């Protein structure tokens, strides 16, 4: 046991070339900058964080800062991304980006995206690794931090993280809807008929099956082939093909293909990265200057412990849904933070009915008074968001009239090409429920 641990330690703290980490910093920093500018340029700061009246915060106390504040947040996000890219006040820049990005992500569940979650995690690790010790402005300001080497774990953690993303994205596709009904691909693809060349194949069910199976096999296995030196080149070609294809077919997934295509280059060999670095302006030859990296040994056990704990959490999260009975896609308990990407086409209609028990009056809450079309669309099939909104509307009533209303949810939802079914028990007053998530107001999916 001790020997195994020792061996594990040796692997983690082995000195390796810093080149892959530096290239990752450059590429990822550039990506963060691009993503921030893109968000601002598309008007999303206003549309997503300033204009909406109500937000489905992950924490009720967390609120957007208003127009000035939110614009400032995104300005700082952009500046800190520049800091990461240039390696300028790197730790501060990365910490700032990390905190602000988390803040923005936690503001509204409506906008939850797996790849934003990935960005958060990758930024967290960028914060902890010395990606600024080579080819950065920091090395000009503080020359003594310059180092051509880093610990092996500084690079391994990113490879492990990306492997986890692929593996669990693949594992999530191992389900009857995906494999045997080719859903939701069979629903989505026919709409892509106008795509050049490929469009003519999109309405065949066979195409949906092909892409479903290929996607599943790709996700489950590609990371293995990226680890193995001999298959790496071919695997990366597949990475390119896969993500370019998804970008063409599903432009709505936005930054995701770009993130994966760029971050997976961390799998390439140090010599490949050194070559890349040598092409950059002001590059110095890495082999000639050999400043090793000497981290303090006493930290090593703690670092190992943190890494192990992190990986265990990452392995646990995608399985946490097993504690909730029923169909995961239906109740969505334990769905987020698990690399479940593009698995569902869930649609329907959800009415929130507010009842004034004292005057025996009831009405359908006009959701447009509170929510944007996008928020409405996301809420209607996600129970935790329904509860959150129902409680909010109920609270408003209680604040105004001094007594509690009753709130009922009447909903029909269709999942992955099935006919719609009643989603919620509309005889249960949600406002009175103490713990709606664990209660049985969600009617189980009938196959």
């Amino acid at each position, binding site marked *: 046991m001790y020997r195994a641990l020792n061996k594990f330690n040796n692997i983690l703290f082995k000195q390796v070339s810093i080149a892959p980490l530096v290239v990752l910093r450059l590429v990822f920093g550039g990506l963060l900058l691009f993503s921030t500018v893109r968000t601002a340029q598309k008007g*999303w700061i206003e*549309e*997503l964080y300033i204009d909406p009246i109500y937000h489905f915060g992950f924490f009720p106390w967390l609120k957007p800062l208003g127009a000035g504040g939110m614009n400032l947040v995104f300005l700082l996000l952009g500046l800190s991304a520049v800091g990461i890219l240039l390696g300028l006040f790197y730790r501060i820049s990365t910490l700032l980006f990390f905190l602000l990005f988390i803040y923005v992500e936690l503001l509204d569940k409506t*906008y939850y*995206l*797996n*790849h934003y979650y990935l960005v958060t995690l990758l930024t967290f690790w960028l914060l902890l690794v010395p990606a600024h010790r080579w080819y950065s402005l920091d090395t000009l300001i503080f020359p003594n931090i310059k180092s051509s080497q880093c610990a092996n774990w500084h690079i391994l953690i990113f490879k492990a993280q990306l492997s986890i993303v692929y593996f669990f994205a693949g594992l999530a596709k191992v389900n009857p809807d995906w494999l045997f009904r080719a859903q939701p691909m069979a*629903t989505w693809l*026919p*709409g892509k*008929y106008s795509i050049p060349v490929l469009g003519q194949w999109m*309405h*065949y*069910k*066979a195409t949906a*099956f*092909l892409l479903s*199976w290929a996607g599943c*096999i790709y996700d489950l*296995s590609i990371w293995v*082939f990226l680890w*193995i030196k*001999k*298959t790496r080149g071919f695997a990366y070609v597949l990475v390119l093909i896969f993500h370019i294809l998804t970008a063409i077919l*599903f432009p*709505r*997934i*936005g*930054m*995701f293909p770009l993130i994966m295509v760029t971050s997976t280059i961390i799998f390439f060999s140090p010599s490949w990265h050194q070559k890349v670095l040598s092409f950059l302006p002001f590059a110095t030859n890495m082999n000639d200057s050999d400043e090793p990296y000497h981290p303090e040994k006493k930290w090593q056990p703690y670092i190992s412990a943190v890494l192990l704990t992190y990986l265990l959490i990452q392995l646990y999260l995608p399985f946490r849904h097993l504690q909730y009975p029923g169909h995961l896609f239906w109740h969505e308990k334990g769905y987020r933070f698990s690399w479940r*990407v*593009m698995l569902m086409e869930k*649609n*329907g*209609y959800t*009415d929130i009915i507010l*009842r*004034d028990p004292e*005057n025996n*009056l*009831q*009405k*359908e*809450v*006009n959701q447009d*008074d509170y929510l*944007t*079309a*996008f928020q409405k*669309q*996301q809420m209607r099939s996600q129970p935790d968001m329904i509860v959150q909104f129902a409680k909010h*509307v109920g609270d*408003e*009533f209680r604040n*105004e009239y001094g007594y509690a209303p009753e709130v009922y949810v009447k909903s*029909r*939802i*269709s999942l992955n090409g099935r*006919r*719609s079914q009643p989603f919620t028990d509309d005889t249960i007053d949600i406002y009175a429920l103490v713990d709606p998530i664990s209660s049985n107001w969600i009617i189980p999916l009938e196959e």
Partner: protein
Amino acid sequence: MRTKGKITVGSIFTSLFILVAVSVLFTACKDKTDDDGPTETDFTDHLTNQINEVIIPTMETYQAKMLDFVGAVESFATAADEANLANVRSAYQAAYLAYQAAAVHNYFANVNVGLIETTNLFPIEVSLLENLIETESYNFSTTAQQRANGFPALDYLLYGPNDVLDYFNTDAKRLGFLEALVSDMKSKADLLVSRWTGNLKMNFIDNGGTQLGSSISVQLNESLIYYEDHIRENKAGIPIGRLGPNDSPIPADATKIEAYYQSLFEGNEAFTLALLRTSVEEMEDIYLGETSKGANGQGYDDLLIAREHSSVDEDIKSHYQNIYNLLANRTTITGDEVLYETIQTLVTLYKSDLFPLLNVQDADGANDGD
């Protein structure tokens, strides 16, 4: 050992892709018959039928009825007597019914023309209307006049006063207003027809697919939004008392029904119910692709059937029948909430079955997906 490892990795990869290729071939053979008839993905036939047989005829009917109405009002202006009043009223009713069908198509040209806001926001504000007439300061395109415009204003003018002939004969400004209003409404109807039969017609047909912004997506979404806001809410929900501002429920209020003054005058809500029925019928015409001659052209029902969802089609059709049956057995809009619930259920059927099965989204997430 090394060589062996190399072969293993390679062979895993190869076998995986052979597996995929085989499964593809297998399914390809099975499903090749998919691409005939209404499963076509650009929907040219469907859209051609919608524009030529459903939308344009509806607009032309409204235009024709408005033309009749203008004629009746002109005669009434020369002699405001019983006979001419009767003609005006019957032309008004015909135009109002034709409007109900036209208004359901609340997208593209209709939105550009601003049809609903200027033609049928009810209830009206009588004091605002009287003031506009008195000061002759009306401008039918302004938002300031939204609550004294269109058919609801006509409803008041033609049925509201105790003695309608006396009302018009004592003040020429009132006749002036009537003529100006009807002529303005007629010019909007003309504009509708010219827009729908112009460039829009081909653009509508060429705008295929079901993605957001496609003709199908726009037609289904916008007509359903009209159904929700104007049929479910304004015509039924508000008078029945199932809707209200923000978080406060409101009691039922029979004064908020459509064609309110006529219902008082006639002592029944038959016309109000007929207006509601006509608007629901146009929703069904869109669904069925039913032509102006009553023939069943290619509609959304055919798209569902082609995708082997005829049970959804049957549910939707029978639900339209439920609404008609309910309206036939009803003498007032207000009363029990069954009418509201039944109207509402159609929205649920559309949103939770029709839309997803046809892969029509109902909102544009202003963000990336997944």
